[in-house]
């Protein structure tokens, strides 16, 4: 049995849970991690030093009782979560809320890139492949798209130019990401190389090779940074509703949402989607059903990488306007997005938004409080941890209903009793 079999068996279990239950579990996971996070904030607030406590834990003293305890903390968890969530959305509760404000734009632009990365990982997961290499594919796609746009954009100007260079950019990103992802696909299919290992290696290789290319061949000579030239203005993704400097385009988000629908349709309603899901759930059955597993693995990897590559293209074209080394870890975030979404393309939309909020909110927390923004990374890990153990919540729910664990065990034992 290969590692893949194990992984997909676990994934199948996740997928098998009903959508409603999944949603409830994701929500519960979010709350549970916020709870743990609170403890963390308080504990850290005791360890660190400060001149005045921002948060005091005590009890009411109704009858003039003397206080039994009064503990001051340097960090205020309420403020942290207020800033984290409301800050990221641009304070919908305040009167002057601008839904098209800068903070919202930031949140949505993170959401957009995560959407592509998450979709990419989800497609692979559904095909029973663990694509840890989304990061590398995203990086490669990112550079390819910028190089393509730098070539094409000067040729055509105006609105047409925007359309042409954007399409070329996205296509180049998709192509490069897809081809790069095809490498572990081919290795897995034809020499049986474990994709977990190869994709991790290819992430490192992508960073190195891309760094080499930029530094030695396509570097912007004007800049100290290891980056390409900036793409012409007319090749930028047009911003609608939001201010141009926010580096966010509803158009890109729209493409993302379209792709969510597209991937959903592909998986649920096409023969290729059937091939892919079958290989993911039960490779032996897929083979039996005439699915060419080798080709499906390569194709799924390619599709997965293409989606990640588009994510990279959007990151470069929409946010940076150039390629620069040191691409944020969207690819790894994509894995967490996909896991939280239960690898369901529609769920990826919600999960990407949540992580978009967390990412953009982290900046607000960094700015508005003394709490280190790495807290948000910890929260992200906790969410995934809780999502990984639906049993914990079922048990919690079960306890409340007074159902004992023993019955659960017996139930699973009885099903296959011969």
């Amino acid at each position, binding site marked *: 049995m290969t590692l893949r079999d194990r992984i997909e068996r676990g994934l199948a279990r996740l997928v098998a849970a009903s959508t409603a239950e999944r949603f409830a579990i994701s929500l519960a996971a979010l709350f549970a991690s916020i709870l743990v996070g609170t403890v963390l904030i308080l504990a850290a607030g005791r360890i660190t030093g400060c*001149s005045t406590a921002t948060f005091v834990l005590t009890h009411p003293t109704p009858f003039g009782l003397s206080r039994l305890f009064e503990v001051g903390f340097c960090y205020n968890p309420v403020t942290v979560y207020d800033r984290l969530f*409301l800050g990221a959305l641009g304070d919908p509760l305040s009167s002057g809320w601008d839904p098209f404000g800068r903070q919202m734009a*930031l949140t949505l632009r993170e959401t957009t890139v995560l959407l592509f990365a998450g979709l990419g990982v989800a497609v692979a997961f559904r095909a029973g492949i663990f694509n840890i290499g989304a990061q590398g594919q995203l990086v490669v796609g990112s550079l390819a798209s910028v190089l393509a746009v730098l070539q094409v954009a000067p040729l055509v100007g105006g609105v047409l130019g925007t359309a042409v260079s954007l399409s070329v950019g996205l296509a180049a990103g998709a192509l490069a990401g897809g081809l790069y992802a095809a490498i572990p696909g081919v290795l897995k299919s034809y020499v049986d190389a474990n994709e977990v290992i190869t994709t991790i290696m290819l992430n490192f290789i992508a960073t190195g090779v891309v*760094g080499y290319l930029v530094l030695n061949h396509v570097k912007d000579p004007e800049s100290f940074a290891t980056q390409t030239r900036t793409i012409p203005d007319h090749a930028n993704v047009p911003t609608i509703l939001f201010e141009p400097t926010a580096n966010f385009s509803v158009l890109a988000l729209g493409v993302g949402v379209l792709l969510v629908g597209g991937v959903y349709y592909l998986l649920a309603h096409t023969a290729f989607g059937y091939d892919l899901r079958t290989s993911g759930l039960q490779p032996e059955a897929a083979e039996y059903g005439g699915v060419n597993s080798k080709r499906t693995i390569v194709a799924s990897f390619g599709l997965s990488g293409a989606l990640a590559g588009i994510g990279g293209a959007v990151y470069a074209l929409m946010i940076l306007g150039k390629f620069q080394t*040191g*691409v944020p870890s969207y690819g790894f975030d994509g894995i967490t997005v996909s896991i939280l979404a239960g690898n369901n393309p529609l769920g990826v939309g919600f999960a990407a938004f949540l992580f978009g909020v967390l990412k953009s909110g982290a900046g607000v927390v960094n700015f508005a409080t003394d709490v280190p923004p790495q807290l948000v990374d910890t929260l992200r890990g906790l969410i995934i941890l809780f999502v990984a153990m639906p049993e914990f919540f079922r048990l919690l729910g079960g306890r409340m209903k007074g159902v004992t664990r023993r019955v659960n065990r017996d139930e699973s034992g009885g099903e296959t009793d011969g």
Partner: protein
Amino acid sequence: MELDRRQFITAAGGTGIAGLAGCSDGPSDDGTETGDGSTGGNASATTNVGIVYATGGLGDGSFNDQAEQGLQQAESEFDLQTNSLQPQEASEFGNLQQRFASSADPEYDLVSCIGFLQADVLGETATQYPDQQFQIVDNVPTNDDGEQYDNVASYTFKEHEGSYLAGTMAGLLTLESVSIGSGSTQSDSTNLGFVGGVESSLIQKFEAGFVAGANAVSADIDVQTNYTGDFDDPSAGREAAASMYSSGSDIVFHAAGNTGTGVFQAAQDAGKFVIGVDRDQSVTKSSYADVILASMVKRVDTAVYSAVEAAVNGSFEGGAETTLGLQSDGVELVDGQQLGSELPESVTSEVASTRQSIIDGEIDVPSDPSNA
């Protein structure tokens, strides 16, 4: 100490106010209105300074810490309220700059951006918030026409000049047999090493200066270089330096931020010497003081301090580049705390005279290793 107490009170009061503001009128600091420094309604004379550090964060023992030192010095001298942000990745720069620029409570009188990677986005931010005063260290952002932004004060350094002195010192020492502290050099080896962080034009200035300085001592001197690809990978720094020491390098100069910690470790392991960077690392990394000959100090603290000082005094001057070289004490080669006094007189005097020659323009120091 008098100063310290005042600082403590200010900080405590400030925190209280910030906390209160946060509670009473809720999060109102996200308005899209651009900040306006000149009409800033702060009743007090407190100057608000925001600082965005380079990735790698504080505690690197070099670049960021040096910037922090400048800010701390300013804090101790002026009525300052500061807020510092440590981005985890380069993509956060723009967002964090804008946060400071758009903040209305408090309004920041100066936003200090540390590190050359911030330049491009700062161009955008500066355009968008024309009334906000910015400072950038290590780079000069310009618009498409090559003009600087009126509200950005740029501070750059002639790292190659300081590095040239490092090269001079290293070159002189490697030709002799010297044994001080825990290190020694062999006169029969003519090898030196340079460990860089991420390969970039900026770090290459260090390399260029160092190589030129060493080669000016003797054309026979060979400088091995290694870029670890990271500013915060001490293990990689250690292996790179270990490899150099073992192949005959007596002295390694690093410009690799925290990666340098590994270089120091390797120097101690090998009983060889190292030249630090950015700060006097024989102080900040005192456990390695026995092998740190000197440090090529880059006065980022001076840059930060003087920008803050200008902001406090209302004498901020945007649209200009301040280049800090040997002449203005912006870069200097500071002898190690422990080893400095034991350095041969011949070496220190030669370094001193070379310094003067550079200041006098008698030596032209290259800033690009490819034509060094």
